[in-house]
């Protein structure tokens, strides 16, 4: 269909139909047709509807091509993240190892303390028992000393046993605490992955 509007009418109508285009595209198209009308006559043009449709089609194709290019960039972005992870590994890996060693050391130290205190308890109990037994050898010489040694020995056995029982409960508590901490840590790690 041919255009039946005057030059200025055509340009005004075209601008209205291209209002959804980006500023630059619209300005360029209008400049082109304005320049054409300087020399050509309005009758040479197609209808405003047809002219606008052709311009909009062309811009849609260009926009689509741009979107496709952007999608390709998305692939490159993923590559960057992978590269970053690879380069971060030399830092992250030693950090993870250090953390693991720290946890292990804490457990070892705790076990050593428990062991030492436990041994003390056992030594006190055994020493007390031995003292109590030996006290009977002086029963004829000095019954007072024998009684004192027996009391001291039994007292030591009592203290030793108390320490052992206390250690047993502390041990159980520590094991329970560590397992809970580790469990929570692993759970959170699992969720993040």
């Amino acid at each position: 269909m041919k255009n039946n509007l005057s030059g200025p009418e055509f340009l005004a109508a075209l601008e209205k139909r291209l209002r959804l285009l980006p500023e630059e595209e619209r300005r360029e198209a209008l400049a082109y047709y304005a320049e054409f009308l300087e020399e050509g006559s309005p009758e040479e043009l197609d209808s405003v509807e047809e002219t606008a449709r052709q311009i909009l089609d062309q811009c849609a194709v260009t926009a689509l091509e741009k979107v496709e290019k952007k999608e390709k960039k998305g692939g490159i972005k993923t590559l960057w993240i992978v590269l970053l992870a690879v380069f971060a590994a030399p830092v992250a890996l030693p950090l993870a190892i250090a953390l693991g060693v720290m946890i292990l050391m804490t457990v070892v130290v705790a076990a050593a303390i428990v062991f030492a205190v436990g041994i003390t308890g056992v030594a006190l109990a055994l020493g007390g028992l031995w003292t109590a037994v030996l006290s009977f050898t002086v029963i004829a010489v000095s019954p007072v000393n024998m009684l004192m040694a027996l009391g001291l020995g039994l007292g030591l056995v009592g203290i030793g046993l108390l320490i052992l029982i206390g250690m047993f409960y502390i041990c159980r508590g520590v094991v329970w605490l560590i397992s809970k901490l580790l469990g929570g840590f692993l759970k959170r790690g699992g969720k993040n992955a």
Partner: protein
Amino acid sequence: MAFQLGTELLDACVLGVLMRGDTYGYSLTQEMTRTVEISESTLYPVLQRLKKSGCLTTYDCPVSGRNRRYYSITDLGRERYVKFRTQWTEFKEAIDHLLGGIDDEK
């Protein structure tokens, strides 16, 4: 005219005109419409497409107080023109063969 030009051929024809020198919108239209039935609404998108794909550049030149936009072919455009030229020759020969006539006489 009985034949319609597709986008590829339109691109090739515009590049062909520009191969002979820079030209501006109205003059290009006149040159094209002298040979092909093509409307202004078809030609503008062709120019935009060629510009966006880097086959031509534009520059503005004031002529008697008014601004005139000139179109100029780029190296990329020249490359594409050469490709079009060989493809067209092959295409023309193939069509000639299908149509028969001149070639069959030989």
